């Protein structure tokens, strides 16, 4: 039987160390909503989402109450809309009407985000893919809860540089279209390499075509729990450090597994995966940067940061994989700048730069995340940053992503406020040298030699 000490430990993690289940995400396939008539697609999409997910929010709240664990977000991911709307949408405007439908459906069932306004173009773009991508700036400006992602590369296919170039322009245009809200639209747009089909985290979640009709994926969190555990092993060697992270990660992930099983059973939808990611929030004590500092850095960004992050990421996975029957999604440590108070402090102190963040993305999930850059950054420069990040993912056979916010009207040193879980961020400087001639070449970067494994 459970003893007093164990019960106390669990409840302390919840009440004092910000342990929570970050998201229950229901993946819903919309492939059966395809139709050549746009109004029919809109009706089918709305009906399917509101039927499948009608009990999602209530179930999340019931589980939260009965087990005494906060379930912060309830969300939905859907089949990439470029595939669903391909037959009906003849223009970017047609796709925007689907975005509005997704937004309406999300509000009806009460989820705070719906992901899957996406196109998968790692090798080439169909006309529908291109129309969807060109509709993103309008869709992000007109909707509130819709999240968009575009996969522009993979280890197997190489990098679609035409799409990379286009996305630089789209990110900039999205920023322009939402300039009244500090370019918030860009916070809902992610560019991926090796995007996973079962990611429960926004803004990059979509329901892959290899998935079942509906599925429950759960993302756990708990940077605060790991940080707290590490305060007890200060000065100890790496073996003790790694053991501590592993054991803590195991405990945190078990909670995710429990919630995933319960949600799956109650909703009558199969359990997909638990995503082991350490996801920070702007709350004090819920920071990945603070873990790195507890490992022994004066500030995140100092020499040693990449090694410390590599170690953290690996131990989190080692502890987590045993705790869950199916692990998937992104599963690693997130390093979003605006959503992590420790990262924000490091940027303000001059300890953390865009280049160091890029190095850090080589050893963790996911990428350059929630980084505010000056609003006058050229689209080709944004494309260049995207290309660099995609190359890291392609060569290292991992998921990488870019979520940059060129804040229109703001420059280096100013602060941008997104609110809520998205937090706030100082605008970071970008290398001013041009990559125009590189980005303006057309075509794609071939797949690396180590992808030919057959």
């Amino acid at each position, binding site marked *: *039987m*459970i*003893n*007093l000490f*164990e*019960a*106390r*430990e*669990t*409840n302390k993690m919840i*009440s004092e160390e910000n342990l929570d289940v970050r998201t229950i995400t229901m993946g819903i396939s919309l492939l059966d909503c395809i139709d050549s008539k746009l109004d029919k697609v809109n009706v089918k999409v709305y009906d399917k989402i509101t039927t499948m997910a009608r009990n999602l929010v209530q179930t999340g709240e*019931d589980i939260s*109450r*009965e*087990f*005494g*664990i906060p379930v912060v977000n309830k969300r939905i991911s859907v089949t990439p809309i470029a595939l669903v709307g391909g037959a009906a949408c003849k223009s970017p405007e047609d796709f925007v009407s689907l975005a509005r439908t997704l937004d309406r459906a999300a509000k009806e069932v009460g989820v705070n985000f719906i992901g899957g306004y996406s196109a998968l173009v790692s090798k080439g773009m169909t006309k529908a893919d291109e129309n969807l991508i060109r509709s993103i700036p309008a869709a992000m400006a007109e909707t509130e809860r819709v999240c968009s992602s575009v996969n522009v590369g993979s280890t197997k296919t190489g990098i679609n540089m035409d799409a990379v170039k286009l996305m630089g322009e789209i990110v900039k245009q999205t920023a322009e279209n939402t300039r009244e809200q500090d370019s918030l639209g860009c916070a809902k747009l992610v560019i991926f390499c090796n995007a996973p089909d079962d990611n429960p985290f926004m803004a990059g979640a979509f329901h892959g075509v290899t998935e079942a009709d509906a599925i429950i994926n759960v993302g756990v969190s708990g940077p605060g729990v790991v940080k707290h555990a590490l305060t007890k092993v200060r000065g100890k060697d790496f073996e003790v450090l790694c053991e501590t992270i592993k054991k803590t990660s195991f*405990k945190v992930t*078990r*909670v995710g*597994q*429990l919630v995933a099983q319960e949600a799956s059973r109650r909703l009558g939808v199969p359990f997909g995966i638990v995503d082991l990611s350490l996801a920070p929030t702007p709350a004090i004590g819920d920071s990945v940067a603070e873990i790195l500092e507890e490992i022994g850095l004066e500030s995140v960004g100092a020499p040693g940061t990449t090694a410390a992050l590599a170690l953290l990421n690996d131990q989190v996975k080692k502890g987590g994989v045993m705790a869950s029957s199916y692990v998937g999604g992104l599963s690693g440590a997130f390093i979003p700048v605006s959503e992590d108070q420790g990262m924000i402090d490091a940027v303000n102190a001059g300890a953390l730069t865009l280049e160091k963040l890029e190095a850090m993305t080589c050893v963790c999930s996911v990428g350059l995340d929630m980084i505010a850059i000056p609003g006058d950054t050229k689209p080709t420069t944004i494309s260049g940053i995207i290309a660099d990040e995609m190359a890291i993912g392609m060569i290292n056979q991992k998921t990488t992503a870019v979520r940059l916010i060129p804040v229109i009207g703001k420059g280096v040193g100013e602060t941008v406020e997104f609110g809520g879980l998205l937090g706030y961020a100082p605008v970071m400087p970008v290398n001013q040298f041009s990559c125009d001639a590189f980005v303006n070449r057309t075509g794609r970067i071939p797949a690396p030699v180590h992808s030919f494994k057959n």
Partner: protein
Amino acid sequence: MKKTIITVVGKDTVGIIAKVCAYLAENQVNIEDISQTIVKGYFNMMMITDASRSEKDQGVMAEELEKLGEEIGVSIRCQHEDIFNMMHRI
């Protein structure tokens, strides 16, 4: 039958156990085990209970106990045992 774990944490005062037990008795909840300790003036208690005969939903009970805790000045949580089993037992 799955158990419900009730934990009480807070500054020690007269009558904490009495008030919690009175509530549980009113609601047909059977207490199977109690362990309790005081650390630096802080009261820590855990009860393993069987709430299968209670007419109240566990979620409702959790909310009512939380309110009762606020009245006494302690924190009371009422949770399904599985969250602890999952975390601490392989």
